[in-house]
């Protein structure tokens, strides 16, 4: 029985590879090319909007070190909201309203609601965790508040901010899939439509769609991970393995946030 399963999977794999290599599946309004572009566009617009909404206030609050508990708890609440529920709620409230650039307003709202919390929390924590000595030194050098934010605190907080953006982006790419259930575009269409017609051969569509979404999510994770490393100031980059001892630097804080482990290095 298990061999039948393996055999079956091999056949399906062959079919999916065939599907992906068939140019006919990529062309046209309903082809994988269009769906891929739609998916990327929906996700990118939502993530960019979330960054614009979330980063400036969180930077300011982190600099002032105010409302920390609120900033941190936003992330917990955000995680607790089922994204499918938000999406349905948005569609029920706003209908199938569409706007240029944004596309479907309800999908946009649901994805932004999903993406904002991790960015807010990480940005706040990144700014607030800049050591007091460093801030004192910056003040002692005569930097103004805004200079301190731009030249000292932001660069130090950047790795964490980027980690938050990465978390959000991967979530958004994955969640944009369910938008298809409510009649919107994106790669989710292949999964939903293929699943609906699975008895008549739609199943290869499901597999191909799933594969494409997973690849897109991994690509997002990888690219943003590279951006994160490139934007990390030299002094903050992890030391080469041979120089790394077990220093106290690895110990987490006992803040609420530390209950969440640090993100995995992509290369690990």
């Amino acid at each position, binding site marked *: 029985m298990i061999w039948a399963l393996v055999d079956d999977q091999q056949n399906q794999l062959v079919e999916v590879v065939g599907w992906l290599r068939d140019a006919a599946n990529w062309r046209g309004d309903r082809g994988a090319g269009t769906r891929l572009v739609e998916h990327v566009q929906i996700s990118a617009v939502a993530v960019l909007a979330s960054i614009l909404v979330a980063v400036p206030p969180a930077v300011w609050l982190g600099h002032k070190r105010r409302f*920390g508990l609120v900033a941190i708890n936003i992330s917990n609440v955000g995680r607790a909201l089922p994204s499918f529920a938000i999406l349905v709620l948005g569609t*029920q409230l706003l209908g199938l309203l569409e706007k240029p650039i944004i596309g479907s307003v309800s999908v946009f709202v649901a994805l932004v609601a999903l993406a904002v919390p991790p960015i807010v929390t990480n940005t706040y924590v990144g700014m607030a965790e800049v050591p*007091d*000595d460093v801030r004192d030194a910056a003040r002692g050098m005569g930097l103004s508040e805004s200079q301190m934010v731009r030249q000292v605190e932001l660069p130090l907080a950047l790795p964490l901010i980027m980690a938050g953006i990465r978390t959000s982006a*991967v979530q958004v790419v994955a969640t944009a899939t369910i938008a298809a259930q409510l009649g919107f575009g994106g790669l989710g269409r292949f999964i939903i439509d*293929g699943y609906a017609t699975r008895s008549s051969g739609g199943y290869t569509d499901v597999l191909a*769609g799933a594969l494409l979404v997973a690849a897109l999510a991994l690509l997002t994770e990888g690219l943003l991970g590279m951006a994160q490393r490139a934007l990390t100031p030299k002094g903050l980059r992890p030391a080469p393995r041979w120089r790394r001892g077990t220093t106290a630097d690895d110990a987490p*804080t*006992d803040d609420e946030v530390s209950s969440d482990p*640090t993100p995995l290095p992509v290369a690990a």
Partner: protein
Amino acid sequence: MLIAIGPAVMAVDNPTERWWWGEWLGRDANRELILDATREHVVLTLAAVLVGLLMAIPAAITVVRHPRMKGLVLGVAGALYTVPSLALYALLVPYTGLSRTTALVPLVLYTLLILVRNTVTGLEQVPADVRDAADGMGLSRRQRLWKVEVPLALPSILAGIRIATVSTIGLLTIAALVGLGGLGQLILVGLNRPIRTAVSVGILLSVVLAVGSDVALAALGRRLTPWSAPRSRRSRRRGGPATGEGPVATLPDGAVTA
């Protein structure tokens, strides 16, 4: 159908359009439907987290004992994490059918990733001095693990359970799209019939369930590990420079929400 009747009639109060239709909620069959959906949601969540826990703790202990496996295990975990759950559900149905197994497998898989990672983090945080002290007191390796290391890792493990539970509740609503799960099905029934009250009740209950269990598990965590209560920022500052405080970040909960 409704559109054919025209907007004039739509404007007349149509009970199926109401967010809260008391009469519909009052019927026994509908109550039964809501109760069943909720029960299914709770049972599947509990099952997924328990099975995940039973598998994650031994796995985490193995990883901590053999650090070479860590990169591999956590790397694979991170990659799997990015696979959208909808895709995973759709892929499983042909093999395991529309059964609870199909609903459970992706859930257990995702909880595993969260739980293993948090348990490993917790066990690794145990200070080397403490481990030395335990050895010096003559504890065996097993005693050291269960009496010293696991209790000290408890805050991190509990945080993992919390994240896993909340994510599982959210994921289960998505399982409805392939015809599985609890409250998500209620939402879909409401969308298809259409009865808006079913939709709003489904949304409300899934949010209440998720937020409620988040709060409850956080409270439980504080009770079980009173020593890990976060100090106020002020008292921390008074304690001198914040040495030993590395970066903190939120979990990349990637696909878990989708």
